[in-house]
C-alpha cells in the first residue's frame, strides 16, 4: 500500500471549535460532575452518613437493642446523646445501626431491581416485536398497582424479615428501569454506529454487550441512584406502617413508627426526629448526586 499524493496528516485534534486535551468520556463526565455544586454537597453528605453507619459498632456506645428500662424515655444528655426510647434503648446507637439496615435494604433492593430491569429492558429493546410487546404490556400491568399497595398485600402473608423486604421491593420495582433501558436500547440500536458494527459483521451478543450496553450505563447510573432513594423510602414507609423491618432490629423506618403515637410525637421529639432527618438528608444527598450524574452524563455533552 503506497501513501498517495494527497495524504495530508492532520496533526491537530479539535472538537467543535477548540483544540482539546486527551480525555475519555468518563474523565470528561467527572470534570463536569466536580463542577456541579449540589452534586458535590451530596457526595460529601452521603460520605459522612456512610462513614457514620459503617463505623456504627465503633462509635455506638450502647448495643442498639439493649433494653434499659431504668433509663427509658430520657431526653438527650451526655450519657445518651440522642436520648432513649420507651424501653430505654439508646437512640444514637439505634440511628446509626438503623442506617445500616436502611441503606443495605435500599442499595441491595435497588441493585436487584436494576438487574431485573436491565435484562427485561435490553431484551425488549433489542429484539422488539412480540418480545417487546409482551414485556412492555407486563410492566404496564404491574405498574397499575402502586408499589406500596401490592407489597403490603404480599408482605403480610410472606412473613416479615429483611430478606423478604429486599425481595419484594426489587420484584415490584424494576419496571421503570426496564422502560428506561428499553428506550435507550431502542434508540441506540438505531444509531449509525450500531448499524456500522452490524455492517462489519458483528453478531447480536457483540452488538448488545460491547456496543449498546456501555452507552446505556450512563443514563442507568443516574437511574440507579434514584432507585436507591425509592427503595430507602419504601423500606422506611413500610416499616413505618409496621410491615417492614421487624423489631427489635432498628431501621430508620421502624424508629419513625413511634411517631404514630401522638404522645411520642408531642413529648418525645428526640425519638423520631433523628431517623426522620437522617432519611431526609440521605435521600436529599442522593438526589443531588443523581442530578449531578444526569447532567454530567448527558449525551449532549458526550458526542
Amino acid at each position, binding site marked *: 500500500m503506497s501513501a498517495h499524493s494527497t495524504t495530508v496528516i492532520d496533526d491537530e485534534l479539535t472538537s467543535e471549535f477548540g483544540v482539546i486535551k486527551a480525555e475519555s468520556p468518563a474523565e470528561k463526565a467527572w470534570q463536569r460532575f466536580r463542577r456541579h455544586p449540589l452534586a458535590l454537597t451530596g457526595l460529601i453528605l452521603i460520605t459522612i452518613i456512610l462513614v457514620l453507619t459503617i463505623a456504627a459498632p465503633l462509635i455506638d456506645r450502647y448495643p442498639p437493642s439493649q433494653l434499659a428500662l431504668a433509663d427509658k424515655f430520657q431526653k438527650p444528655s451526655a450519657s445518651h446523646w440522642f436520648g432513649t426510647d420507651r424501653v430505654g434503648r439508646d437512640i444514637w446507637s439505634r440511628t446509626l445501626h438503623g442506617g445500616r439496615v436502611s441503606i443495605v435494604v435500599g442499595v441491595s433492593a435497588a441493585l436487584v431491581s436494576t438487574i431485573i430491569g436491565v435484562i427485561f429492558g435490553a431484551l425488549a429493546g433489542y429484539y422488539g416485536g412480540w418480545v417487546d410487546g409482551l414485556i412492555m404490556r407486563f410492566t404496564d400491568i404491574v405498574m397499575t398497582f*402502586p*408499589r406500596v399497595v401490592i407489597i403490603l*398485600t404480599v408482605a403480610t402473608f410472606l412473613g416479615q424479615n429483611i430478606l423478604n423486604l429486599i425481595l419484594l421491593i426489587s420484584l415490584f420495582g424494576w419496571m421503570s428501569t426496564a422502560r428506561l433501558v428499553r428506550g435507550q436500547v431502542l434508540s441506540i440500536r438505531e444509531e449509525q454506529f450500531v448499524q456500522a458494527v452490524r455492517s462489519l459483521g458483528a453478531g447480536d451478543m457483540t452488538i448488545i454487550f460491547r456496543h449498546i450496553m456501555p452507552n446505556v450505563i450512563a443514563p442507568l447510573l443516574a437511574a440507579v441512584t434514584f432507585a436507591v432513594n425509592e427503595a430507602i423510602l419504601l423500606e422506611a414507609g413500610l416499616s413505618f406502617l409496621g410491615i417492614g423491618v421487624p423489631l427489635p432490629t432498628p431501621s430508620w423506618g421502624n424508629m419513625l413508627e413511634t411517631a404514630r403515637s401522638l404522645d411520642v410525637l408531642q413529648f418525645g421529639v428526640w425519638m423520631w426526629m433523628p431517623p426522620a432527618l437522617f432519611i431526609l438528608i440521605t435521600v436529599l444527598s442522593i438526589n443531588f448526586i443523581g442530578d449531578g450524574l444526569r447532567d454530567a452524563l448527558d449525551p449532549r455533552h458526550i458526542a
Partner: protein
Amino acid sequence: MDYAIRRILINIPILFIVTVIIFLLVNLAPGDPVDFYVNEEMGVTRDDLTHLEEKFGLNDPIYVRYFKWLGATLQGDLGFRYKNGDDVAEVLFERLQRTLLLMGAALLLGVVIGVTLGIYTGLHQYSIADFLLTTLSFVGISMPAFIAGIFGLYFFSVKLGWFPSGGMRTIGKPETLLDLLHHLVLPAGTLAIMYAANFMRYQRFSILEVKRADYIRTAQAKGLKPRIITWRHTVRNAILPVVTVIGVTVPNLVAGALFTETIYSWPGMGSLFVDAVAARDYPMVMGIMLVTAVVVLGANLITDLTYSLVDPRIRYD
C-alpha cells in the same frame, strides 16, 4: 374520536388481567384466611368455621371461584368483610370518596403550586428566586408523604395548634365546609409537597426547553409583545408535556395518600387498606386493589385524552 375509542377499549384487556392478578395474589397466598379467625380462647374452633367456608364458597376450584368473584364484581358486588360482615362495596364507596377528596386536593395544590413556580423559575432562569426555589425543590422531592406528614403534624398541629391533628370533622360540631377544609389543609398540604416540587422541576425544565425552540425565535423575529411570546408561544407549549406527567404520578399519589391517611386518621381508603391487610380481610383487600387499579387506569386515560385534545399533533395521527 377514533383515537378516544381505541384508547378506552385498550383498557378492557388490561383490566381483565388486573383482576386475574388480584385474585391470584390473594387466593394463592399461603395460609387459609379462615385460619386467622381460629381462636380457641374465644371459643371459635375449626369446626365452627367450616360452615363459614361453605358460605363464602372457599372450597370450589380456584377458576370457579375466580369467575364467581368476577361475575359478582361486575355487578358491583364485592362481597362481605370477614371482619364484621359489612358490605365491601358500600364501605369502599364511602371511603373512596374521601380519599379522592384528599388526593384531588393534594393534586390540585401540587399542580397549581408546582406549575406556577415552574413557569416562574423557567422564565426567570439564573435569578435568585430561581436558584432558591430550585434548591428547595430538591428538599421537596426528598420529602415523602410520611415524613412531611409527621413534620406537618408536629409543627402545625401539636406545636402551633393551627390545625386539628386528625379526622375529617370536629366531633360534636355541625358539619360545615369550613370545618372540612380546616381538617383537609394539613393532610392535603403535606401530601402535595412532593408533587409540587416534582411538577415545578418538570415545568421549569419544559419551559427552558421551549425557550430554546426555533419557533420562539420566529415569534421574536415577528416583533410580538413579550407577553404574547411568553403566554401564547412559550407557556402554552411548555405545559403540554407536564399534562402527561400528572397521569403517571397518580400511583404515587395513591401510595402517598395511604401514609397521609394513617398519620392524620383520615377515614379514607388508604387507612382502611392498612387495617384490612393487617386483619387479612381479603374481600376488602381485593376490593381496594381493584378500585386502585381502576383509579390509576382512569387517571392515565383522562391524561391521554386531555393531551390529545390540547395537542393538535395527536388528533390527526
